């Protein structure tokens, strides 16, 4: 092979790599661009409501009568609804998710693991509308009968269904965190005469704590942003719930329920977009915390 031919080949190969590189770069730009556009339109459509109402009254107003005259746009009941169902869902999902992760990663034998792990992951793939349906036709009548309630669509029902959706997230990410704990730490513990329980609770869990916290936050973010389930089973009342047996309306449900009826670019429409901004900020905060925790985790790992 003569020298000039080889050189030419190399140049064309380099050119080809450049082209491939720029194709990938452009494609990754597309998703960044789309996120940017979503932000832009969300703010563009949401901010005008603040010409009619102050941010303070919007966030902390307790009345939501968007079609009354004059209308009330207070989303405090929805914020409380979201926080209430998310907290209660976390209260249910965190122990379930973390304990199942500990079981799968530390205790289960090979065969139990082979069964439990895919089943938990299967839970993640159930469409939310199916979970909502389950809440409506199975859990709701059950709650009604058990607690003698007029209505089974309430905070408790929504929290239970959201917990069902958060468990796979919490469990699989926690399990990754536990698997990332080096075997040498477990060996060190066993070599000092620790039993399995002591090793799990005093060595493995503390070492995996940052990763587990990340898992919990991401699970909570999932519960916070989930729409279909809360739309179907939370009951929908735009009022601050007084107990877990009362109906409520979390932020995403509010948007989904009313958007179709809000006149285009009217006050109601803008108020719903502003609700979307609040929701976005809340989930964004959850993700930022999760990101921070996982970063901290990596640093302690490499140290």
């Amino acid at each position, binding site marked *: 092979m003569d020298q000039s031919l080889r050189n030419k080949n190399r140049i064309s190969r380099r050119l080809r790599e450049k082209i491939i590189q720029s194709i990938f770069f452009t494609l990754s730009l597309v998703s960044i661009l789309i996120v940017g556009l979503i932000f832009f339109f969300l703010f563009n459509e949401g901010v005008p409501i603040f010409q009619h109402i102050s941010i303070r009254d919007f966030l902390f107003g307790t009345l939501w009568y968007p079609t009354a005259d004059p209308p009330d746009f207070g989303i405090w009941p929805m914020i409380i609804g979201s926080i209430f169902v998310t907290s209660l869902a976390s209260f249910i999902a965190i122990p379930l998710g973390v304990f199942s992760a500990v079981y799968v990663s530390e205790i289960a034998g090979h065969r139990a693991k082979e069964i439990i792990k895919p089943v938990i992951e299967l839970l993640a793939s159930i469409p939310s509308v199916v979970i909502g349906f389950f809440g409506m036709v199975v859990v709701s009548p059950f709650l009604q009968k058990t607690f003698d309630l007029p209505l089974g669509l309430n905070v408790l029902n929504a929290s239970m269904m959201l917990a069902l959706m958060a468990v796979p997230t919490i469990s699989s990410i926690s399990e990754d965190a536990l698997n990332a704990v*080096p075997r*040498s730490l*477990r*060996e*060190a513990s066993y*070599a*000092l005469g*620790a039993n399995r329980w002591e090793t799990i609770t005093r060595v493995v869990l*503390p070492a995996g704590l940052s990763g587990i916290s990340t898992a919990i936050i991401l699970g909570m973010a999932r519960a916070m942003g989930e729409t279909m389930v809360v739309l179907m089973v939370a009951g929908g009342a735009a009022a601050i719930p007084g107990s877990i047996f009362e109906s409520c309306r979390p932020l995403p449900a509010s948007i989904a329920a009313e958007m179709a009826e809000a006149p285009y670019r009217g006050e109601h429409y803008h108020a719903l977009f502003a609700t979307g901004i609040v929701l976005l900020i809340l989930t964004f905060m959850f993700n930022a915390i999760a990101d921070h925790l996982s970063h901290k985790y990596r640093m*302690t790992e490499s140290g």
Partner: protein
Amino acid sequence: MMHNRKTAISAKNLNFFYGKSQALFDVTMDFAAHEVTALIGPSGCGKSTFLRTINRMNDIIPGTRVEGEILFDNQNIYDPGIDVVQVRRRIGMVFQRPNPFPKSIFNDVAYGLRINGITNRVELRDRVEKSLKAAAIWSEVKDRLNESALSLSGGQQQRLCIARALAIEPEVILMDEPASALDPIATQKIEELIVELKADYTIIIVTHNMQQAARVSDVTAFFYLGKLIELGQTDALFTRPRLKQTEDYITGRFG
């Protein structure tokens, strides 16, 4: 030299299997109390596996199986009635790579004491200090006991791991290439420490480094392909090996 040697541990016809593949073949040898015994041999010869059978660390690897006996204190530690936790409390271990817990220096050493039921703060403090002194690291860490153990250098971490092993006052200490991940100065400190510790402990050390074996050990056992090939006083084994295989290995002709 051979007078008054008391046997601390004996292996009798020990065979070990990872699944179907056999890693140790019929190993029989005694370990004398208050001596340093070095296990040498090329990679994969079974010396680490053998070391880990002595405190039943291989139990935590699924699919492994032991045949034969390890006698310690007149009991076979593989008898069904034996509590493996008790075995490991009396036979401590230091690993190849320093593996401090991601805890403070104090809590790292106190861990073994706490799981052994010592909760009295004064006693914890005393025993942590005593172990850190015995591991020759006290002067370097006494002002930073609450700092993370991970902030120490590799050599310091390894001495911390030795302190952690000493804290629960075992009778035997197993060391699996304890200096292989360390620089020469840290290695020298560990070696000096090993020689000091044998006054109080029986030490069994796996090493790749033949100079190290020659420097620290009283007795050396040469392993090859899962078999104990030659066992003898270290100076004799290194100067006048009885078998050709041993000689080839220690003179660097293979391995």
